[in-house]
């Protein structure tokens, strides 16, 4: 399964090569042109396979980001401990006592923590700060550590993709579903025949500020864009009758608004109508927090009508996420239908 290989790949923001190579291998036979731009985005073109009935849109861009949140080594202590900083949004509470791999040699390491025996009463209620944490690669001193790791090296969570015991939700767990889920969906969409040029943009550095998408959109100059995401899913136990952002197993989540974008209403309607007519389960992303590549793409040049579709993913920005393969497959079906309907132009 492509999602499994993508999830297991090492790819913090700015270090997306391993992910990119996997995607390139998966899609190269289905696209007419492929290039890697200055920021490392993989931009693949599949030309129109049918004559269009409309003059608009001619170019449609679908984007998913390859990068994941991770860590970067900032300092090596003389005892061999690696100090680090976060790359993208990671809260320190998900870091302690986690297995990671570091640098180009993929050195295994552990983010150290003190056992409960040694914690004072007041320390137990406190959260550690990232600057107080360290990665332990078992090196006896700095010079040993430096043979394996350099300052500036990246670290990623060492999580292996696994099928969860059979369930109706067909759940899988692994790291970086934000946004390898989107990449997996996009790699499927690439195979479709459309009456417009389809530009698949596998972007870099989303987690540090939508940077890859900004330049990809500038060069592609699309008429319409979609962004595929692995988004927050918090359908976990709650005390009050308040919103879940999304729920696992309830289908792809359609965004109306988040911090970065107010989705084009025509595209949102196109997605909703596609889902309703085909009976595809779907939901709204019920929160206005978070941002995606759509924020950068819609503001490119003179503006681009843009929409966002997400695969609900529990526990994103942590060492292990969980999603439903049914949601993933429904996202492919929904997007395929929406893209075909787009051949007739934007709805009024």
């Amino acid at each position, binding site marked *: 399964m492509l999602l499994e290989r993508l999830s297991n790949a090492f790819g913090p923001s700015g270090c997306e090569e391993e992910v990119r190579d996997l995607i390139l291998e998966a899609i190269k036979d289905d696209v007419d042109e492929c290039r890697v731009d200055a920021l490392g985005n993989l931009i693949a073109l599949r030309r129109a396979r049918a004559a269009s009935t409309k003059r608009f849109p001619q170019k449609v861009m679908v984007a998913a980001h390859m990068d994941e949140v991770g860590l970067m080594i900032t300092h090596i202590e003389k005892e061999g401990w690696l100090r680090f900083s976060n790359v993208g949004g990671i809260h320190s509470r998900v870091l302690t006592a986690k297995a990671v791999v570091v640098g180009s040699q993929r050195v295994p390491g552990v983010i150290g923590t003190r056992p409960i025996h040694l914690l004072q009463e007041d320390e137990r209620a406190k959260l550690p700060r990232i600057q107080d944490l360290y990665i332990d690669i078992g090196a006896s001193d700095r010079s040993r550590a430096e043979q394996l790791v350099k300052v500036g090296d990246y670290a990623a969570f060492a999580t292996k993709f696994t099928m969860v015991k059979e369930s109706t939700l067909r759940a899988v767990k692994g790291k970086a579903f934000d946004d390898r889920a989107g990449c997996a969906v996009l790699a499927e969409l690439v195979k479709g025949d459309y009456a417009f040029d389809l530009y698949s943009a596998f972007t870099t550095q989303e987690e540090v500020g939508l940077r890859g998408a900004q330049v990809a959109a500038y060069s592609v100059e699309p008429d319409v864009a979609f962004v595929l995401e692995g988004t927050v899913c918090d359908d976990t136990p709650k005390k009050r*009758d308040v919103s*879940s952002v999304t729920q696992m197993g309830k289908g792809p989540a359609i965004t109306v*608004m988040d911090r970065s974008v107010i989705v084009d209403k025509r595209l949102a309607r196109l997605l909703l109508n596609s889902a309703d007519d085909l009976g595809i389960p779907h939901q709204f992303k*019920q*929160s*206005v927090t978070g941002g995606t590549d759509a924020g950068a793409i819609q503001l*490119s*040049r003179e*503006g681009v*009508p843009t929409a966002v579709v997400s695969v609900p993913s529990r526990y994103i920005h942590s060492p292990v996420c969980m999603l439903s393969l049914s949601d993933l497959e429904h996202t492919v079906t929904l997007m395929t239908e929406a893209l075909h309907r787009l051949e007739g132009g934007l709805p009024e």
Partner: protein
Amino acid sequence: MKELIRRLSETYGPSGSETKVRQLIEEEIRPLSDQVRVDAMGSLIALKKGDGSGLKVMLAAHMDEIGVIITHIDEKGFLRFGAVGGLRPLVLIGSRVSFANGVTGTIGVEKLDTPEKTPSLDKLFIDVGAVSKDTLPVGVGDTACFTRPFVDQGDRLTAKAFDDRIGCAVLIEVLRTLTRTPHDVYFVFTVQEEVGLRGARTSAYGVNPDVGIAVDVTTTGDTPEAHPMAVVLGNGPAIKVKDSGMLTHPGVKNLLVDTAERLGLPYQIEVLERGSTDGCAMQVSRAGVPTGVLSIATRYVHTPSEMVDYNDVLNSVKLLVGLLGGPISLT
């Protein structure tokens, strides 16, 4: 002009849902413009052609206003919501909001553990008077804005959404009054200013102007125990020098000041410590655009009752018409 201001202010138009405002403005300006178009983000761009000897000037005022967006509907049919733009919970409780389909909702608040503290947004909800969840006339993703009638108090006017319908009114009136200009003047009514100057960014790229002027509201320091600020209602159009998003191009600032002096119009200098306008996005478009901001002093910005002085509005129109009537040199 008061009737135009009334209609603009009372129209529904939270960020991302500017269609009704755009339709109203389009009706007003179509007969006055040489060219009108709507760009990909929804901004309305009207061109009044010059005689060919001048510059390409972009005037911008934003059509959108702050509002709320439904994020969740509970079992009893109460709506939880998020903010569209800079919304403060303090001014929300008891306020009424209206949706695109005309449905009105009242903002209520949960029982508070600490009533002396301003509650956060997640303690508030909207009640549209539904007796059951099944018959709700609105859904998740729908946006609403304040609903409040325009009040004419003589010199002073009070309404919702003067931020920035008052700027839209000024642009329309300038277009109406401006008979002759050397410049190609683009009157741009932007979208999504309140959520991050988004419409101005893409429309400025599209227009590619030589000079930009945003027309927007600014806060004042003339109310009881206000944060100190040297802007007063009725003291004339405010010419911006700085806000938290931009430093005004000195040439454009001088041009505004010199024009006011030449025409004998009152004006005041504005330094805004918090907040910004479309001018911030326009000045960094492409290779950069010399940009200034003409502000209308406004009390109670981002509340359901914003107040302006009508004379400031009229003088802003005169200032811009005077500026656009002659050659522009930025020194």
